[in-house]
């Protein structure tokens, strides 16, 4: 018995406590195991497995059915069974052979062993002999021993060889018996290989198809605790060594585990599977092993952002693209925004932001429409005027030059314009500074109206003089209208009096907004100024993007008189308040007190006249609002941009973005903040009220937010947000960037020049651009009829040329000279290639862009040489004659036979202009090179019998052996031999004046114009 005296607790009770707590403890261990085993990704992998099984089954069924319908397969099966039968007959023979082989193999084994033993001893003896020669041991006996063993070994070897020969012989015999069977088997395998592999895969994937032991293994391998041995369900990851996750102190190789759940991401065939199992779109470009961005080299979060190491829905920092999706995720995945991770995944809207990291040099970025649109908007809206953006460093200001504003417009118009630009021009890119969210209360409006007076005053009193030519009389507005429609103005401008509801901003639509919408010019300007401006834009503003169209005085006058006709009456009727000196003083005092004491401010104000005050205020206000970011304004040549630098804005920490009083209304993400800022730039000055209205925070006028309102649509905001989100500080290793070789650099530089000078407003390059086509069609409708206007090939022939294959097409020297001194090429064109005031460097950039883009890397080439006596030349003469090239082409001053509608370039120009290699290409398939061209492939006799050719085409052509290259070469030789007048413009002009274009509808209009 236990001594009871020295006890305190009732042992039974303690036992119970012990039992209960141990049970609890054990239970908690069970919980811990369950908790550890229930990894969130497992559910997805299990689900994917069933999706995969379904897919394999489907594949297998398909493969089986193709095999069944395969005639060869059945036949081979048949032959195989016959071969098997044959073997059945020879069973005895085979058994006999096998027995023999077995016997001989036993012999071989013995002999081989003897040989091995002997050889080993021989090797030892050899070593000993060498040692003896070295002076150790007895040389004589060693050599004797060596010789004996050598003989022994050789003997065994011979014996072995003999046995092996016998064995081989027997084996050959056996193989011969089996040879037929083997052949069919091999053939069968090669046909059904794919089916067999698929079946095998199914066997490994589908538990229902497994053998019994494998079924058990399939369960056992994924049991808790045992699941480290060879689990089916496991975390999958990609480690990208050279792309680093920014850990601030250090970079760590990127580890992405996204494919743990997104299991079909790099596998073809899951395109229609539900998320997260579907295949990545465009596998050839992204993720696929042969794409430029294979998963193993780039991972996932390099482009998409997010937390690559995460293995749960939340710990990977998924971002919903709409509140609806957020709600759905909350229900399905218990989603909540991931705190403590600076780079959450991009939303669908901003997904292309990742492209910007590496491809920002391109414009547009192929395949990234939203991003490219954003970049185009940045360039058009001039965001870089106020915000530093390294990508657009040094790009010219986007607004008009205001240095000579007094000659262009009036004080009153300017006041109204600044006050409310969109009242005058609904789609202008000039933003609203006034009467918006944070300054539309009565007091602010009163003040800002006086601010505008000050700005206007400053602009006009500092305006430089502009010496203008007199406007010629007898200008014809109607002709001006036609000129505007046909000369090419509509490549950069539009005339659109009202906003159209279905307008969606695109890169293409922005091209027409390169210059202003040409409405209401009568309210804004005067005919004399427009006349001088269109005639020579550079005289008004040396760096303007408006090119010189080489207008005659009459043309310029017609255009100016036409443009001035449109006035905006409601805009003209707006009232302008008088200058209010009290408020002007208030504004001036605000600025003065930034530097002076209160008492000094009063003295200073008393000294200033009202004009001085206005001028002073105007200057300060222009600085305050940053007008100089977009306009050249006297006195602001060296002013610094006023906005936040956006170069790495996409990496800005969320804590650095001030959500102000919107913190309850706005999800705390960068894109929501940027989006809200763009939608209403002044919103963060405001305090939302319960009834949905806003009241302003207590702020001095000069402390208020001042980013202006561009009136952006959600579509545009998404595009801009994408650009900002893409502007990150991530460092991408050089070998992961697009290779910066000559080609890439030339293409980037060229694309940028083409974008900023809007070349694609007129020209189509590789299917993109050519905004002007629509207005060409309108013009055609007017001068001929609807039928012609709807025939795209005619529209194309009256529009600026396609620049596809331009780099291979023209000789670079000629192109440079032509750019500098434009002359007529396609005689029927009304639209005019303007003269751009580019430097040689810029022209070279453009030429090199064309060359590199089109794979033409030679800079210098020998001129094509030909002889008029050659057979080739003679053949060419025949071909051009029978091909009736003269129907459309000028031969020097010789006019084409057909009407002007179908005219094509003067062939005399060709030898200076074109590259023969390109011509060869072009002749053989014009549609390939210039889609839509009216130029037919010159007919050559390649498939006619020799006799016919000799009879119809003469011996020179016949001598070419129906070789198309040689025949076309002849045609080229002929063209190179042409001599005559280069410039046919005067002939063309007089022809058009007298006879017009001759729009006749022909039934088989094969011999139309071209556009080369």
């Amino acid at each position, binding site marked *: 018995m236990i001594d009871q005296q020295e*006890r305190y607790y009732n*042992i039974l009770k303690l*036992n119970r406590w012990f*039992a209960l*707590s141990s049970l609890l403890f054990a239970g908690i261990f069970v919980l811990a195991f369950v908790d*550890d085993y229930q990894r969130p990704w497992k559910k997805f992998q299990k689900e994917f497995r069933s999706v995969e099984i379904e897919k394999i089954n489907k594949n297998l069924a398909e493969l089986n059915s193709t095999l069944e319908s395969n005639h060869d397969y059945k036949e081979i099966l048949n032959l195989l069974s016959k071969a098997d039968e044959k073997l059945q007959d020879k069973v005895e023979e085979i058994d006999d052979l096998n027995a023999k082989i077995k016997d001989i193999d036993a012999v071989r084994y013995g002999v081989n062993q003897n040989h091995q033993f002997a050889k080993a001893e021989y090797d030892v003896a050899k070593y000993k002999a060498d040692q003896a020669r070295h002076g150790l041991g007895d040389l004589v006996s060693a050599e004797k021993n060596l010789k004996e063993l050598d003989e022994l070994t050789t003997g065994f070897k011979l014996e072995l060889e003999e046995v092996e020969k016998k064995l081989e012989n027997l084996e050959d015999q056996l193989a011969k018996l089996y040879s037929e069977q083997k052949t069919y088997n091999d053939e069968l395998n090669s046909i059904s290989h794919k089916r067999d592999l698929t079946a095998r895969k199914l066997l490994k994937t589908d538990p229902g198809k497994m053998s019994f032991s494998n079924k058990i293994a399939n369960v056992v391998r994924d049991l808790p605790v045992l699941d480290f041995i060879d689990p089916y369900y496991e975390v999958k990851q990609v480690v990208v060594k050279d792309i680093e996750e920014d850990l601030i102190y250090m970079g760590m190789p990127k580890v992405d*585990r996204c494919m743990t759940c997104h299991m079909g991401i790099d596998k073809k065939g899951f395109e229609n599977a539900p998320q997260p199992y579907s295949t990545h779109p465009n596998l050839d470009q992204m993720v696929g*092993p042969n794409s430029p961005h294979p998963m193993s080299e780039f991972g996932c979060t390099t482009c998409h952002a997010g937390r690559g190491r995460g293995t749960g829905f939340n710990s990977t920092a998924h971002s919903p693209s709409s509140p609806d999706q957020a709600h759905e995720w909350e229900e399905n995945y218990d989603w909540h925004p991931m705190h403590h991770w600076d780079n959450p995944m991009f939303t669908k809207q901003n997904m292309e932001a990742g492209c910007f990291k590496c491809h920002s040099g391109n414009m547009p970025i192929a395949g990234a429409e939203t991003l490219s649109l954003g970049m185009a908007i940045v360039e058009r809206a001039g965001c870089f005027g106020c915000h530093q953006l390294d990508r657009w460093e040094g790009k010219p200001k986007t607004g008009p030059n205001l240095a000579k504003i007094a000659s262009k417009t009036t004080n009153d118009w300017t006041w109204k314009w600044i006050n409310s630009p969109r009242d005058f021009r609904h789609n202008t890119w000039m933003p609203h500074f006034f009467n918006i969210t944070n300054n539309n209360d009565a007091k602010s409006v009163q003040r800002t109206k006086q601010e505008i007076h000050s700005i206007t005053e400053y602009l006009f009193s500092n305006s430089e003089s502009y010496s203008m030519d007199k406007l010629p009389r007898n200008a014809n507005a109607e002709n001006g209208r036609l000129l505007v429609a046909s000369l090419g103005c509509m490549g950069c401008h539009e005339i659109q009096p009202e906003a159209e509801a279905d307008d969606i901003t695109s890169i293409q639509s922005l091209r027409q907004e390169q210059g202003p919408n040409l409405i209401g010019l009568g309210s804004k300007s005067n005919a004399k100024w427009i006349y001088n401006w269109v005639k020579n834009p550079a005289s008004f503003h040396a760096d303007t993007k408006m090119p010189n169209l080489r207008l005659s005085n009459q043309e310029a006058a017609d255009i100016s008189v036409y443009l001035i006709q449109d006035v905006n009456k409601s805009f003209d009727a707006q009232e302008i308040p008088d200058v209010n000196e009290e408020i002007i003083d208030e504004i001036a005092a605000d600025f003065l007190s930034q530097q002076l004491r209160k008492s000094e401010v009063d003295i200073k104000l008393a000294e200033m006249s009202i004009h001085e005050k206005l001028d002073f205020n105007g200057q300060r206000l222009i600085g305050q609002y940053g007008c100089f970011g977009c306009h050249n304004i006297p006195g602001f040549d060296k002013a610094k941009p006023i906005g936040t630098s956006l170069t790495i804005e996409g990496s800005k920490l969320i804590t650095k973005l001030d959500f102000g009083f919107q913190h309850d209304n706005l999800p705390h993400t960068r894109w929501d903040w940027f989006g809200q800022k763009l939608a209403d730039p002044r919103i963060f000055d405001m305090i939302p009220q319960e009834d949905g209205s806003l009241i302003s925070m207590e702020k001095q006028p000069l402390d208020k937010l001042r980013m202006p309102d561009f009136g952006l649509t959600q579509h545009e905001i998404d595009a801009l947000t994408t650009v900002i989100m893409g502007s990150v500080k991530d460092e991408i290793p050089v070998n992961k960037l697009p290779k910066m070789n000559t080609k890439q650099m030339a293409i980037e530089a060229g694309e940028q020049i083409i974008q900023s000078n809007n070349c694609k407003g007129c020209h189509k390059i590789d299917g993109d651009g050519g905004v002007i086509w629509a207005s060409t069609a309108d013009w055609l409708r007017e001068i001929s009829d609807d039928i012609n206007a709807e025939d795209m090939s005619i529209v194309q022939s009256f529009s600026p040329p396609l620049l596809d294959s331009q780099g291979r097409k023209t000789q670079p020297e000629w192109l440079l000279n032509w750019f500098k001194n434009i002359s007529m090429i396609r005689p029927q064109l009304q639209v005019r290639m303007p003269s751009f005031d580019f430097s040689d460097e810029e022209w070279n950039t453009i030429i090199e862009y064309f060359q590199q883009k089109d794979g033409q890397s030679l800079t210098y080439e020998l001129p094509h040489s030909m002889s008029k006596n050659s057979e080739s030349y003679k053949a060419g003469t025949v071909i051009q004659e029978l091909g009736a090239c003269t129907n459309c082409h000028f031969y020097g001053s010789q006019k084409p036979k057909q009407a002007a509608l179908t005219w094509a370039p003067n062939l005399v120009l060709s030898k200076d202009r074109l590259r023969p290699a390109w011509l060869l290409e072009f002749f053989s398939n014009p549609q390939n090179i210039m889609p839509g061209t009216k130029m037919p492939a010159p007919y050559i006799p390649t498939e006619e019998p020799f006799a016919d050719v000799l009879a119809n085409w003469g011996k020179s052509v016949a001598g070419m052996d129906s070789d198309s290259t040689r025949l076309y070469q002849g045609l080229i030789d002929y063209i190179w031999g042409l001599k005559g007048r280069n410039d046919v413009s005067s002939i063309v002009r007089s022809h058009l004046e007298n006879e017009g274009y001759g729009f006749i509808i022909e039934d088989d209009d094969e011999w139309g114009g071209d556009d080369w």
Partner: protein
Amino acid sequence: MAEIISKKSATKEPGRRPPAALDKADTGDQISRRSFFSWLSIGWFAFIAATGGFFTMMLRFFFPNVLFEPVQTFRAGFPDDYTIGEVDLRWKNKYGVWIVRNNEGIYVLSTTCTHLGCTPNWLNSEQKFKCPCHGSGFFKTGINFEGPAPRPLERFKITLADNGQIIVDKTIKFQQEKGQWNDPEAFLNV
């Protein structure tokens, strides 16, 4: 205060516990020890289970779910990249394999000698793999024919991807002496 405290203490027995209670406790103790399902044995079983759980947990802890070792599966280009009859050395350093193409197809050999794990050299003039450590020699097929190597070189799994590329999986190996070279994945018919 005094009232409250005294009320409380009145309900409690001051001083020692009467021995009777202990007696009872002890007899209970005696019974419980013999009965299998007593609280005590339940307690011990649960405790041992929990302890076992802890050691299992510790054991499992040592096998991470993810490895950061170099990938064992790689893409080795297209079958046409390999010349018939040649031993291709391009993956030797990076992945430790030779890819050999013969008239019938392609197979992948491990560069690890089956003797003591050195890396043999391919001697093109003699058409054999020769291990520099102990002189083992292997034919182009991987079969050992001289030196101490006990068995042929191992082959790795080779398959074709959907796009026609070769995929080599080093986690699955095939040994000739086990007859595994006949496995369809040990050899790629081209």
